[in-house]
């Protein structure tokens, strides 16, 4: 094997309450394509952010050596200077500027502040040729498809004299032929001596082009597989991704499942901006009284989109399909109607969609059901509000100095409990919980699971979206698997395993795509 060009040693990175990376070791050899795989939240993106200087030196512990030199990047521009270029999943192009303008943004070919357009455009052409993109340098980014935009990003990396290219899920939003082209390009770069790190969920493409595969799990390196030494199967990779101890992380539960309380049939929805893109396709799901139903799938599988389109049509357009509660059809076309019909949706993004951060805890808890603490539906009865919200603070164990503390000053776990309190206070029969434990520590997770169990035992129907397989298996009674807006699998949790779910998620991807 050739020389090591990148070595990351004992990288540890903590966020308030969470250890995102724990003593990770990772190295890349000259001229190889190194795949980085792992579940959502395993720490792949965090590791790459540490590498590229998004998290500057000093905010993590451990050492990074690139081309034999120790690196202490303070920001992205310093890592790019030595030839480390990262291409994020969300592309960082300015949509209303041309390819040429984007290509040299912040790095313009200029004399005394005056741009030399001839130079800039001819250079752009040269770079576009290298990545096989035949577009005029004056084309606006917004007029091109995602696949071509991706190529512009790569060309931009070439402009920076890249030595190690990092791609974070580059093919996630590409179609088959664009993905193919991109992978070929990486192989071609390899011949020209440019190494790449490829983060991907698509194991088929990993298997096809990677020289080595490093598996991360729960913020730690599990193993690095050499693709030339052994024949690596997808099953082998999946086993590495999921294998972990499940005991004692979930509170025990006796489930008493009753009749179907809520059901959606033939649910279809389209993307609000790209109106020809379907976000939900013929979805049929149901939940029973006292049952916890999980929806598993990768990020971008359309789970949140589905949940929000059900919750008062709060996402998507041209939504069609029928919803039934206790066998009777209900109208859930506005959020207000959905709440009135006893449906609640606790969002995956607390800070953006869940909380009014600059308001007090008590104001947040009562927001969805102010009528219950007001006289005549108009005047807020403050003593009533205090009593009600203090009750939730005690019941859900929200750690705060007072219920008048601002939501912004709470930890993630406690913020999540405030969001849950808000929806419990609205007294729903059906609760949709979207990633209820994202970004919160293990102890708080256990508390959330306990609350979920209690709600189920009270006869509510619970739908839980989660990207963490152990969580889905440990908490749910039944599991739906979603991919590309469709339900592609349904199984009782007792018969499911992490491997079987992951297989359902991953292998379907190849069969259908």
């Amino acid at each position, binding site marked *: 094997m050739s020389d090591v060009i990148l070595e990351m040693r004992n990288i540890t990175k903590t966020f308030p309450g969470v250890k995102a990376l724990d003593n990770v070791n990772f190295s890349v050899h000259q001229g190889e394509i190194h795949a980085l795989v792992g579940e959502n939240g395993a720490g792949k993106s965090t590791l790459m952010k540490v590498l590229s200087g998004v998290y500057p030196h000093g905010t993590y512990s451990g050492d990074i050596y690139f081309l034999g030199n120790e690196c202490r990047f303070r920001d992205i521009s310093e890592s790019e200077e030595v030839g480390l270029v990262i291409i994020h999943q969300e592309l960082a192009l300015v949509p209303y500027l041309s390819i040429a303008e984007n290509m040299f943004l912040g790095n313009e070919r200029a004399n005394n502040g005056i741009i030399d357009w001839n130079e800039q455009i001819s250079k752009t052409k040269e770079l576009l040729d290298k990545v096989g993109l035949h577009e005029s340098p004056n084309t606006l980014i917004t007029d091109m498809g995602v696949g071509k935009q991706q190529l512009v990003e790569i060309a931009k990396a070439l402009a920076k004299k890249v030595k190690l290219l990092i791609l974070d899920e580059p093919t996630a939003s590409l179609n088959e032929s664009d993905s193919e082209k991109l992978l070929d390009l990486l192989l071609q770069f390899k011949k020209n001596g440019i190494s790449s790190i490829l983060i991907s969920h698509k194991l088929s493409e990993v298997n096809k082009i990677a020289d080595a595969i490093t598996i991360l799990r729960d913020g730690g390196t599990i193993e690095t597989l050499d693709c030339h030494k052994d024949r690596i199967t997808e099953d082998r990779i999946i086993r590495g991704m999921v294998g972990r101890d499940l005991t004692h992380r979930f509170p025990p539960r006796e489930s008493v499942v009753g009749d179907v309380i809520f059901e959606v049939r033939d649910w279809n929805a389209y993307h609000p901006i790209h109106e020809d893109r379907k976000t939900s396709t013929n979805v049929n799901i149901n939940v029973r009284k006292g049952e916890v139903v999980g929806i598993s799938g990768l990020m971008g599988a359309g789970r949140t989109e589905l949940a929000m389109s059900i919750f*008062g049509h709060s996402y998507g357009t041209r939504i069609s399909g029928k919803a039934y509660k206790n066998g009777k059809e209900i109208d859930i076309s506005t959020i207000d109607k959905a709440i009135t019909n006893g449906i609640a949706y606790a*969002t995956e993004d607390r800070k*953006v969609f869940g909380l009014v951060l600059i*308001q007090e805890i008590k104001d947040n808890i009562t927001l969805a059901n102010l009528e219950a603490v*007001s006289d005549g539906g108009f005047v807020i009865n403050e003593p009533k509000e205090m009593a009600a919200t203090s009750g939730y603070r005690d019941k859900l164990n929200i750690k705060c100095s007072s219920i008048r503390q601002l939501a912004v000053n709470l930890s993630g776990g406690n913020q999540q409990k405030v969001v849950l309190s808000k929806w419990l206070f609205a007294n729903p029969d059906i609760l949709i919980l979207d990633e209820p434990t994202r970004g919160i520590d293990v102890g708080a997770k256990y508390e959330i699971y306990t609350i979920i169990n209690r709600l189920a035992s009270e006869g509510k129907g619970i739908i839980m979206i989660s990207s963490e397989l152990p969580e889905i298996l440990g908490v749910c009674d039944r599991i739906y698997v979603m991919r590309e807006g469709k339900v592609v699998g349904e199984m009782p949790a007792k018969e499911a395993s992490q491997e079987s779910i992951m297989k359902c998620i991953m292998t379907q991807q190849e069969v259908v795509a």
Partner: protein
Amino acid sequence: MKTLATLFKNNIREYGMLIALIAVMIFFQVVTKGILFKPVNITNLVLQNSSIITMALGMLLIIVSGWIDLSVGSVVAVVGALAGVLMVRYHFDWMVTVGICLLVGAAIGAFQGFWVSYVKIPAFITTLAGMLIFRGLTFVLLQGESVGPFPTGFQKISSGFIPDVFNYPGFHLTTIIIGLILSGLLIFLDLRGRQNQQKYGFEVTPFYFFILKNVVITGAVMGLCYLMASYKGIPNVLVLLFLLIAFYTFITSQSVIGRRIYAMGGNEKAAKLSGVNTTRLLFYTFINMGVLAALAGLIVTARLNSATPNAGDGMELDVIAACFIGGASASGGVGKVIGAVVGAFLVGVLNNGMSIMGVGIDWQKVVKGLVLLAAVFFDVYNKNKS
């Protein structure tokens, strides 16, 4: 128990503004050699600023929602013009005219609210258009000239005083009695709020502070009443203002709709996903602003006793400045009625004091601009520090 210093530090914004107002008042009292606090001037100060304060109440709700309304000065003018034309040219009864004008204000608010909340055109643009449209319509209505004078009943809105039941010569005794009742009411409300908070185990301010606060407030109320009593008593418009301030304080702090407006301004997406119909709520907020701007238009027209094409010119800037000086946040979700009122008074005292001193309108604008900048800088500085 908190000490006075930490208490002050935690509420630096609210007390700081009040202290600034008092300092500015003392400053002008000294440099104008006592003219500022003369009974006639205090009464004038209230009369001149009543329209600003009225509109600041509506503007505060707009700003808390996260938007802005640039058109209120033009709405003042167009409503004044309409009132003038109806009463002078068509001899409408003044009370009917007031009713029509307030309805037209609501319609103007609905018009602008429609574009902002349903069509999603940013309020800055919509109301900039409104500013031009309604100023233009004012000229159309008045055909470029002033219209007046008006029936006495209409003039009394701004220039009338409440009657004195005692008829004590040289001193308006009713005003003092109203002042006493008001002080008693404020103390009672404060005490009840305090008890409620204690009942739920919240930390309350120390008792001596509570006493001190109420002594200061009572002193200010009684001082104001005394000054007015030595002139002509309480102006009608002050009664109106008091009722409006009380109403909007109640709406913002105690009502469901007020809570929802703050939630909408604080995080529109979260409010929407909690079942708040943010589109309709914003629409109503603009209608409310339209009605208050119309009311201000009537007050201005009644005070000047004529409708002029340039009435209310630049008034929107004083109104918006009052809200920001009073601690409202330009990004929405933050701001108090009482802050906006204090801010409006500060702007008013600056206008009044500098006019007495003979400072030209040019330098007055410079000073007001600097005060606005200083107040907001103070906010930003405190936020960054904490």
